[in-house]
């Protein structure tokens, strides 16, 4: 019997994996992929809540609209972020997070 709790735990584990990747990895592009994973994990929690909170006997489509907006924002974010990474690579010749330390003081 698969309950809402199962989906929430999978979502939480996926989010934690992404978080570990963002903290531990040094390649900016992989950090970025982990950010995408965290966003999708939040989407999974939203869709789970939407399915198990019935309105008029149908899933709650407010949550799924929010997921739609999140996916759109994530797509825009990836486009801009990758353009920034390309610009960074042009000036530093590296995609290592440690190569960007100008603001470190």
């Amino acid at each position, binding site marked *: *019997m*698969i*309950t*809402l*709790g199962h989906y*929430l735990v*999978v979502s*939480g*584990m*996926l*989010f*934690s*994996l992404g*978080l*570990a*990747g*963002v*903290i*531990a990895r*040094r*390649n900016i*592009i*992989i950090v970025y*992929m*982990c950010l*995408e*994973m965290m966003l*999708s994990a939040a*989407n999974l929690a939203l*869709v789970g809540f*939407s*399915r*198990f909170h*019935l309105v*008029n*006997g*149908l*899933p709650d*489509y*407010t949550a*799924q*609209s929010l*997921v*739609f*907006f999140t*996916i*759109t*924002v*994530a*797509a*825009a974010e*990836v*486009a*801009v972020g*990758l*353009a*920034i990474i*390309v*610009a960074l*690579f042009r000036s530093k010749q590296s995609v290592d997070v440690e190569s960007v330390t100008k603001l470190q003081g």
Partner: protein
Amino acid sequence: MPPLLFYLFALITLGFGFLVVTGRNPVTCALALAASFVGLAALFLSLDAYFIGVIQILVYAGAVMVLFLFIIMLLDIKTEEGKKLNLSAIISGVLLAVLLTLQIIMVVGGTDLAGKSAQDTPLALADAAGKLGKAALPTITNDLKAGTLPDAKLIGFTLFDQYGFHLQVIGLLLLVGTIGVVVLSKRERSAP
């Protein structure tokens, strides 16, 4: 959805997600991320969110992953790292992730909301057709009476009925994003 399939797709999602975090080669990571997103889309389908599942595959596993692979191959990133592993960052990252997972499991286990299963909350399609009444479009009520869930139609109805302004703001965001990418990737003519 049978429990076995849920566990299979959860395993695909989390296993390939783990590969993204630990993989050495960026191309491997990108392909693992695509596989992870396909598993996640299957989980969405199991939650009766067909539209979101298809969008997940089209946008994430399609467009976003192609963009990632394109950038990885454009910049010609080798499997670097390996020289010096940032041990303190890895330890703190793993520790924080484990703590967060345990915390989420505790919170989920402590609520009775999480005990609901799909059998407890079955979709009442024929009922919904009557309850929506005149508020819904005829095409939606017809589908509901026929016993199918008109997922995309209902999302579209919600979006354009209640969130029209938000939809336009998102459209503006995409425009700003497009302009931002063009400005960012333009080569500067005269270096100061």
